[in-house]
């Protein structure tokens, strides 16, 4: 960049934006990489069953599959609303 370029309009550093966006999306996609295809559907159905009894939001059920050498563990995490808010 030359001395006179400083007088031109300052441009955004778009490479920085690209880097940050990539870091986020790549980390997100890697965390889902080993998950079987049926997991989102499974999560939805579990959510529907719980909703019959308790009013919960979509993001309050988390389903994760961890694979070890010998076995796989299906981890189910449900956050219930505080007492009094229940349907």
């Amino acid at each position, binding site marked *: *960049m*030359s*001395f*006179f*370029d400083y007088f031109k309009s300052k*441009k*955004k*550093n*778009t*490479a*920085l934006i*690209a*880097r940050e*966006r*990539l*870091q986020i*999306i*790549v980390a997100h*996609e*890697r965390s889902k*990489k*080993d998950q079987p295809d049926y997991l989102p559907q499974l999560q939805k159905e579990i959510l529907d069953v719980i909703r019959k009894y308790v009013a919960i939001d979509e993001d309050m059920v988390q389903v994760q599959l961890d694979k070890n050498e010998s076995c796989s563990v299906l981890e189910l995490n449900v956050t219930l609303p505080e007492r009094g808010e229940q349907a």
Partner: protein
Amino acid sequence: MATIIVVTSGKGGVGKTTSSASIAVGLAQRGNKTVVIDFDVGLRNLDLIMNCERRVVYDFVNVINGEATLNQALIKDKHVDNLHILPASQTRDKDALSKEGVERVLNELGERFDYIICDSPAGIEHGAQMALYFADQAVIVTNPEVSSVRDSDRILGILQSKSRRAELGLEPIKEHLLLTRYNPERVEIGEMLGVKDVEEILAIKLLGVIPESKAVLTASNQGTPVILDQTSDAGQAYSDAVDRLLGENREHRFIDLPKKGFFKRMFGG
């Protein structure tokens, strides 16, 4: 036993075929018996880049189906000794590549060659999966651009889970990053992702950086792989990359801008 190297990327148009051709020529120039296979069934182009499109009689699918022998299908390269090309079929679709058929052809080639370069089609479908399945090493061709980097990460995931080495629990495929169409000037002013950024995101070892260069188009126009143009920066960068692939130490060039003098810094240029 030959070493099988897949040149892959996920995204199209990033320079897989250009890189396959130059890496194959480079390996052959250094005395290795090399064959380069076009896995892009239906959209073959390696023959054009290598300037042998008019000598194609039989192809990879013919050999898999037993309609031709390897000797009939292999084309001897006219630029360098020790190099052969196995073209893809232009008329079939990618499902014509059966895993058993590909394995049989690779085994037969393995008896005669030191290196087998597999030029992968774009995408993550059957053709791309066949190109990478039997690989020992992978060259991930990436442009410093968001969609290319993301697709490269996808391909890395497939190499680590759906390749033969992954399925059999063998030593993982050795992965190399080849960053192409790199423009140090645009990196300097924050318009393009830098080498360090891409290395950090993909977390694999850097094989080389090929600068954006007019020589690449000039080379493909004529069908002479750009590595043969040693007056060009891209040609020299491919030479360095091939040396590194063979385990030699080469300092990375063409990454930084040449230092400017006082006048250029003041007045641009």
